[in-house]
């Protein structure tokens, strides 16, 4: 991805993040449009550095099953796969990189059982789920799931959570500061106890 593309995407992302939650919740179609831009970027397989185009397709299909896209943006719109591509080249995730590469190949291999020629990504959703249920207990699944979640919910500076769509998924407002009342129960509670000396 060129620097220009990156800054365009980040510009869109920052624009989304600056809005208030109340406004955001009323503007879901707009967010979807924003997510659509991110999706277009995410589809540029040539931009991947540490995942091959085949691995990226498989990872994207896996991520889409972990946090699916529906009326609320999921892992794909959050750019989790781009995050993972970048993360696998960093020292912190270096230890699990071989496991992820091998696990993605294994997913494609297992797709062969369904006579698929296009790998895991070419399977139907039902078939993908069937394979994932079979490997739920394996380390690859746990680590790849965690990567998808980090890519969706980490600070956007790491390349995922585009437009802070991960935080919006949680219903989390996105401000640097908050004032009381914070939640419903303290809002109902009324006046704070006054300061009293011993």
């Amino acid at each position, binding site marked *: 991805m060129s620097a220009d593309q990156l800054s365009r995407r980040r510009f869109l992302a920052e624009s989304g993040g600056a809005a208030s939650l109340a406004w955001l919740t009323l503007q879901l179609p707009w967010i979807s449009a924003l997510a659509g831009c991110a999706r277009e970027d995410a589809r540029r397989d040539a931009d991947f550095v540490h995942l091959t185009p085949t691995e990226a397709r498989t990872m994207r299909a896996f991520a889409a099953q972990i946090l699916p896209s529906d009326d609320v943006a999921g892992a794909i719109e959050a750019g989790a796969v781009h995050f993972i591509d970048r993360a696998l080249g960093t020292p912190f995730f270096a230890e699990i990189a071989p496991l992820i590469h091998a696990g993605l190949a294994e997913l494609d291999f297992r797709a062969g059982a369904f006579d698929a020629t296009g790998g895991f990504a070419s399977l139907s959703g039902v078939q993908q*789920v069937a394979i994932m249920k079979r490997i739920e207990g394996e380390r690859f699944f746990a680590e790849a799931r965690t990567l998808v979640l980090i890519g969706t919910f980490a*600070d956007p500076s790491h390349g995922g959570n585009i437009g802070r769509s991960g935080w919006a998924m*949680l*219903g989390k407002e996105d401000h640097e*500061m908050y004032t*009381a009342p*914070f939640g419903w129960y303290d809002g109902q509670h009324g006046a704070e106890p006054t300061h009293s000396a*011993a």
Partner: protein
Amino acid sequence: MNQRTYGENETVDFVIVGSGAAGGVLAKELCTAGFDVVVLEQGPWQQANQFTHDELAVERKNEMLNTGFEPFQSFRTTATEPMQRNPGRGMMYRRGVGGSSVHFTANYWRFRPIDFKERSVLGPISGTGFADWPVTYDELEPYYTKVDWEVGVSGAPGPSDPFRTRPYPLPPLPNKSSGVLLERAARTLGLHAQVAPMAILSQPYDGRSACMGCGHCYAYGCEFGAKSSTLSSVIPKAVSTGRCEIRADSTAFRVEMSSAGRTTGVAYWNKDGKEHRQLARAVILAANGAETTRLLLMSASPAFPHGLANASGLVGCNIMFNGGSSTTGRFEHPTNEYKGHVVSRIILDFYESDPKRGFYGGGGIDARFNNGPIGFAVNGLPEDLPSWGSEFKRALRDYYTHSVRFAAHMTTIPVASNRVTLDPEHRDHWGRPALCLTYQDHADDMNAKRWFRDRTQELMEAAGASRVWNQPVLPIDSGVHLLGTARMGNDPRDSVVDRYHRAHDVRNLFICDGSSFVTSGRGQPTMTIQALAYRAAEHIARFARSHEI
């Protein structure tokens, strides 16, 4: 920050190892009293505006912690087992000026009079190091009050608090939904929820900003300086005296000794790994229960074959982490616990040990939900809910803004075989032996965790949660409260330092941090670490003035 600097061959009055909760206080008090002080801090000197809310960097990569810098620690449950890589996160603390007072949650419970004399009141616990402290609450109270007013603590007295000579300097922080729900539960069960004392400013104080409610106290540094770390409270005052140098990026590896058995200074590595040495008339170790131990053991010599100040053999022994157990609940309406400070209400009705329970142990319960989005998504939901797919995604949304955890914090019993030692095989970044933890929970500690977990579950049900789930009660292999490894005492045979924190074996060596604790308290040690530091500083200054060092 502009500060006075000292030459290495200039003999300063005190070199202090560690700039955290204790080291920061000791530095400020001693330089204010007119002494020249150099503080050696292994980590960097970050300023408030350098702190971020980056969960990946802070909570997963642990970039501020020792474990992010030096990931390997070894572990075994008994000394007869081989050392293995610690399966948990190990003994954790923050590297950097201000130490763990920068990233902690800032719960500031005082100990109570019973904490200091429990052995006398309850009797011995067979096979343990359960003992009275050589100081009392009455003796320490002026220093607790000093902490309140010097660093800035917000709160209000509770129904069974120990006496205090001055009120809190700052009114309570706002009550949160978690606090309101804990109050509701307490009323239903006939218990008392009280304001949690927090080392966070509820109002501007002493030239510092009030809390802005950013929601990143736990594990993060405060970018507003509203959390009362030593970085934001006493260290700037120490530096402004012109008699204190905070030497960051300086990793102490040996306390230097003369042939006469006195310390002459501390040897350390600078950022580039180059050896340096700071000469001093006296040395104070305030590096936390793990690192103070490592430094003493690494300072072994023919005159001190088992480690410096270790004639008792107790350096590194009796480590206590404080037990913990908890219950989480989901509520009908938003709680939004990700906003604001972490804890606003606590229950201390179960503070004291009660022989009727059949085991030793007491503690307190707080209300919170301090999971970040990543941590929550990875393993924050009840285990019987889907962990991926559309239902998982819906559950994340349903639970993240609607959950509260009631967390119990409690005693751990000092046991000599629970100890920190040097790993003979693994070396850290600098070539120091890695830390090894040998630890097995005392049966009473496991019972206490289970008993308190039952209480948090009852409270959560009484609070009206629509879904209640417990966190598993697990044995300890890791922790952030690093207590008891150089315990205080009057008898050199069963303690490492005396009641003024002077090493029994070395006249001009003092040790004051969590390692000084004799028993664990109920789970929030920093207030007591700082009260001890204020008291120690006063006595050390007195000894220095009267040439008794």
